[in-house]
């Protein structure tokens, strides 16, 4: 780029591009941040009205479904508080009672959560790290 005007034009265009991209980035980012909450936090009213992630153990013996239906209901707990979850769809391979799970969705009532997605991605201890931490925190809070 030889001339000074061309160089200025170029730098100007790049700056405009960066600003526009930055604005888009900020919006896309804000809209797609998913916060994680434990059942204790949800019961304490800390969870937002928008979509968030809820995580804990799937309470043993809490899983029910209408025979033949895709809709299932189970309880997610951090051993202190618990929240009921309703989900319609195919559950992931690693979903099981007594193991950790993270569900994405929003509150549908008092202590009731409607999940759009169930994530059972975890290590060999069947425990997503967020859930392990949430359980730890709940245990400490209870102990004190």
């Amino acid at each position, binding site marked *: 780029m030889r001339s000074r005007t061309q160089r200025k034009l170029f730098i100007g265009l790049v700056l405009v591009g960066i600003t526009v991209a930055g604005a888009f980035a900020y919006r896309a980012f804000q809209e797609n941040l998913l916060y994680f909450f434990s059942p204790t936090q949800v019961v304490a009213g800390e969870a937002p009205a928008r979509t968030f*992630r809820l995580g804990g153990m799937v309470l043993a013996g809490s899983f029910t*479904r209408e025979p*033949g239906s895709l809709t299932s209901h189970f309880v997610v707990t951090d051993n202190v508080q618990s929240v009921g979850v309703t989900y319609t769809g195919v559950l992931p391979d690693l979903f099981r009672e007594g193991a950790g799970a993270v569900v994405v969705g929003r509150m549908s009532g008092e202590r009731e959560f409607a999940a759009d997605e169930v994530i059972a*991605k975890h290590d*060999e201890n069947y425990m997503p790290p967020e859930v392990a931490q949430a359980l730890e925190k709940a245990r400490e809070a209870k102990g004190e």
Partner: protein
Amino acid sequence: MIPEFGQLALALALCLALVQATLPLIGAANGRVDWMALARPAAAGQFVFVAVAFAALEYALLNDDFSVEFVAAHSNSALPIFYKATAAWGGHEGSMLLWIAVLAIWTMAVAAGSRSVPQEFASRVLGVLGIVSAGMIAFAFFTSNPFTRLTPPVTDGNDLNPLLQDPGMIFHPPTLYLGYVGAAVPFAFAVAALLSGKLDRDWAKWTRPWTIVAWIFLTCGITLGSWWAYYELGWGGWWFWDPVENSSFMPWLMTTALLHSLAVTERRGIFKSWTVLLAIAAFSLSLLGTFLTRSPVMISVHAFAADPARGLFILGLLGLFTGGSLLLYAPRASNFEAEGGFQLVSREAFLLANNILLVSATGAVLFGTLYPLFIDALGLGKISVGPPYFNVMFLLPVLPLAALVGVGMHSAWRMTPGQLLLRRLRWPAVGALVVGVAAPFAIFGAASALTLLAVTIAVWVCASSLLDPVRRLVLRTGAPLTRAQMGMCLAHFGVGVFMLGATVASAYNLEFDVSAKPGDRVEAGGYEFVFRSVRSVQGPNFTADEGEFELLANGKSLGILKPQIRLYQVQRSPMTEAAIDTNVLRDVFLALGEPLGADAWSLRIQVKPLIGFLWLGSGLMALGGLVAITDRRYRVATREARSTEHVEQPAAGAA
């Protein structure tokens, strides 16, 4: 005995890597030919010992030596023999050994292929590769030794993670590593140039073929991973913006930018310091990827349960390599003078735009990947960044990038009259606009603005890439195309095909979760599924429920689909094996879920139009790279090398 032998070999490899990392560099700085001549034999010796170590691990795996901790943790006597061999990269320690082995292969290749390069420069390149290798072997040796014994030994192993018991596992990790680790080669060339202070067009010419080869492997590795995720892990998804996927994708984006920037440096002698920076960034992102997957910061199928010491060690190496090279870079950057200028409408300008857009895309992915980690590290809560962020932020730079591909490849170096470009490209542009807007409506009946835009750009990329080959090969007019140009056209055509596949498969994907009993007929997405039965089948190390479905379209049978849900016996974990009916234009994907009671099963049915274009397009990109490296100027360089080899041989032998 054999595992101890492997460990000893690893220790010797470390010693030779240290020799390779020091003496040739000191020799190059002081002009001592005998010290420089140590580079190749040290590299060869290191290669031999790394190979011995790897063979020792394979021996332990194939012979079910459960007194070795790694074998006990990642294999089992009932595991099919194929997977016993591939279990070597099914766990952290083994995959680090694979990393080292792949680097040793690259180092050998560079040692053999750099004979046409001045000895001083080759010694520096091999020396830098030696530093990288020494760091990684030390990492394996001190924090992740695959040969650690287990006392007392166990009678049988814990089995390989069922997700990894798949043919995709044989090819995906080694191919990806060949690409990932291959980024170390342009990095070594860049650091060698910084050390010598000589960065000219020859440098770019030497670096370019290595970069292309690494890029080809990276392209194939990521594609294989995506394909594997599609049929094995993801219930039909092919890209999740998972942090680990991102960490292989970011080096790909950077290497792609580097390829284009190297073209400018080679042809025109400009963008020099920028090219060096890209080479450093590409390798740093590879190391960052290794760090992300090998530390406890994230959990995914790729992350093996990790210990913090390992993460710290890799972070230290990352700091050393990146920080060290940037320290070399900072005072020298201004020394690399541009050898010419260019106009606003010229190939250089379009390649500059390519680089800016690719770097922006990388930045967006990097930000989305690291932000949750920072927030977590600062104790501000657990957040995750959803895929829509990545989709928007990735498309924002990539759509204009793709649109510019067609113009850029038809513009000339230095300057191009806009009139000429307009005249050459107006018909492909008009054609792309007509097809891109009309076809989605004609075929699918509806389309969003984004779909129309993406399809138009994809068709435009395809059309403009074919312009020159068609003119030359079909109409027999115009100048003959070099292999490099053919490769470029092919790779860009692949980009268009990929975009078309990605757009159509995402926009017109049909997905249904249904409940069905044997004997039911399910209609979904224009297809009919006759659920015949579910029966138990016995695999070598699993039992499975296998569904049998007949797939029909318009009353005509298309075949039988047999999705399975497997229960692996050792780890007691269930795995879905989807059944896919594939043809060029669409995939019909059927997965069997869990029993719902009352004889019913959950099913996931997906119809994905043009998804095959994803793999086809990626394959064409890689093929384009392959064609490009057979270009005459690289072959001439090799031939020159071969004729000088006889002269150099005695010197190397004496050392």
